[in-house]
């Protein structure tokens, strides 16, 4: 009986109900969009570094990070790589040899970190090939080297220019080799931009005099992997080597993640509050408008508690319409944008200049949707308690006479 009245009330005042439903839809949409956007933004920010620099995790000789001595190579590389390949978490793996030395052109010479990579593996793990701004990614010139724009500028070299790399080999001798700049990299990272030179690992190892040298194994993981947990698992499996996840490799990233995460939380709280006020205001208006009507009901003998319950029931009905509708709109928006991307190039020309993707692809998990919908519906219900309670405070007689 009460249900019926409530249901009818909902449909009798189309505009009023529309506004409440609208508030719920807007709330869910706003949170889905805002949350999805911020998450893609944050992830984009961190992912940028993970993708091109740290990868999801790295394995080294335990002493390598303290002292990048070329004799600190990883033992049992094959065993580790085989193990990694068997793990479902692992997406791609690459092996590198690393030596600090110097790079010189006919104009300048400077210190540099020389990284020997397998071009195919490397492009899978760090997408190094995507950073090429000029020239090619390890083309077929003899002994190609890739360097960053800043370094190229400093050395005054261009694509195809000759450079000489000099470093100490495994026997303590100074080794030098001629290389040709195959490509110039454009990266946000100062490390890539200014102090790295990428060469073919096989050739570097030849010069180093350690044919199978691997100083670093970097790997990427599939989405949803807890990289920290996975790194711990690897540490247990290979206690003689040191496995670190991106957070250990770059504490700054953890800092950024926490900073942005904390900010996101408070932004969501503010939006939720705005939403709650919107709903309270609308409900309050709706109830006040119905003071006379509710007065009549009470005068006819309807108990205050039932009137209160009726109003709450109306809200529930409105929510059951608004909730799915909002979910649909939010999901559609996120799916559409997740597919097509949000182009931010109009907002900041600087984005791409710093190597940040101009286009964001927001994504939300089922859990996020669930939380948003639940949050908004609870907000709506809570927000209707005050107006409903306010409504039943009226004296029926007074209520009927009020306009």
């Amino acid at each position, binding site marked *: 009986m009460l249900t019926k009245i409530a249901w009818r009330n909902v449909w009798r005042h189309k505009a009023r109900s529309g506004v409440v439903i609208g508030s719920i839809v807007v709330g869910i949409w706003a949170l889905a969009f805002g949350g999805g956007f911020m998450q893609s933004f944050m992830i984009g920010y961190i992912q940028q570094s993970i993708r091109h620099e740290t990868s999801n995790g790295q394995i080294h000789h335990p002493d390598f990070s303290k002292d990048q001595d070329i004799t600190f190579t990883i033992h049992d590389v094959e065993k580790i790589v085989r193990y990694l390949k068997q793990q479902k978490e692992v997406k791609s793996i690459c092996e590198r040899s690393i030596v*600090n*030395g*110097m790079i*010189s*052109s*006919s*104009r300048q*010479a*400077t*210190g540099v970190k020389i990284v020997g990579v397998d071009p195919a593996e490397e492009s899978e793990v760090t997408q190094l090939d995507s950073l090429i701004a000029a020239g090619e990614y390890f083309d077929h010139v*003899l*002994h190609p080297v890739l360097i960053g724009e800043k370094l190229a500028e400093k050395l005054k070299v261009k694509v195809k*220019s*000759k*450079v*000489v790399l*000099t*470093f*100490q080999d495994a026997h*303590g*001798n*100074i080794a*030098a*080799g*001629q290389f040709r700049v195959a490509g110039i990299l454009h990266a946000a990272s100062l490390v890539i931009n200014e102090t790295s030179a990428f060469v073919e690992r096989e050739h570097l190892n030849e010069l180093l005099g350690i044919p199978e040298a691997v100083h670093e194994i970097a790997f990427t993981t599939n989405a949803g992997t807890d990289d920290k947990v996975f790194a711990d698992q690897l540490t247990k499996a290979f206690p003689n080597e040191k496995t670190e996840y991106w957070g250990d490799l770059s504490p700054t990233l953890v800092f950024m993640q926490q900073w942005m995460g904390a900010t996101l939380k408070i932004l969501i709280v503010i939006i939720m509050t705005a939403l709650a006020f919107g709903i309270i205001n609308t409900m309050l208006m709706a109830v006040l408008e119905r003071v006379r009507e509710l007065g009549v009901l009470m005068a006819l003998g309807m108990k205050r508690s039932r009137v209160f319950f009726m109003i709450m029931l109306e809200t529930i009905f409105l929510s059951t319409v608004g909730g799915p509708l909002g979910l649909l709109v939010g999901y559609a928006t996120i799916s559409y944008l997740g597919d097509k991307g949000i182009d931010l190039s109009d907002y900041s020309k600087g984005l791409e200049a710093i190597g940040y993707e101009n286009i964001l692809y927001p994504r939300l998990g089922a859990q996020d949707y669930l939380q948003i919908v639940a949050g908004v519906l609870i907000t709506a219900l809570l927000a209707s308690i005050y107006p409903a309670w306010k409504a039943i405070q009226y004296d029926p007689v007074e209520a009927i006479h009020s306009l």
Partner: protein
Amino acid sequence: MKKLFFLLITTSFSLHAQTAKDIIKKMDDKMQGNSNRSVMKMTVVRPDWKREVTMKGWSLGREFSLILITAPARDKGQVFLKRKTEMWNWQPSIDRVVKLPPSMMLQSWMGSDFTNDDLVKQSSIVEDYNHTLKGDTIIGGLNAYQIVMIPKPNAAVVWGKIVACVEKKEFNQLLVRYYDEEGALVNTLVMSDIRAIGGRVLPCKLEMFPHDNPKQKTVIEYMELEFDLNLKEDFFSMQNMKRVR
């Protein structure tokens, strides 16, 4: 700073030849010598300052050398030792021998008029280049061969081309121009003050001019030079670093 000395100790001295490669080889052999002892002065000239360093040097072939700084006061007594490709430094003020990592040797060379390739001398002017006799020229009234040297494809050399003018009679280098791969002049090395020293006729003054910075140069002058001394490998030891005077 440090590596410059090894270059200087072993630069430019002569004989007779016909093909371009022979000419360069003769010149190179002369500058490699076997052993020598020298006293020299280096002057670094910059637009707003100038610095003079005097030093004594000993060398044995290409692999061993020892340098003792004698002035200015602050640097006096400092010794550099090079054995093959390793390098040490001894400072009396701290009484310590420190092995210099390659990057450090480079750091201290930043801004010098001698490029890394000059200094490290990892490459051989004979083996790493293809030589062509371009013709004859006259420099400062002396007849000279003009020889163009193009680095071999795999040589660890930063230059695109080197043009050297070698005096015909004594096989001394008179002028060397260093070009990048696009043919732009980078550095010019001028050798002058040719006179008898240590029983040979040699240019005693070397000046390096970087083309991009016309207001700066580095000048080396030999005051004394002796050849074919009875130096042994053990002269170039860490113990001896603290003893040489």
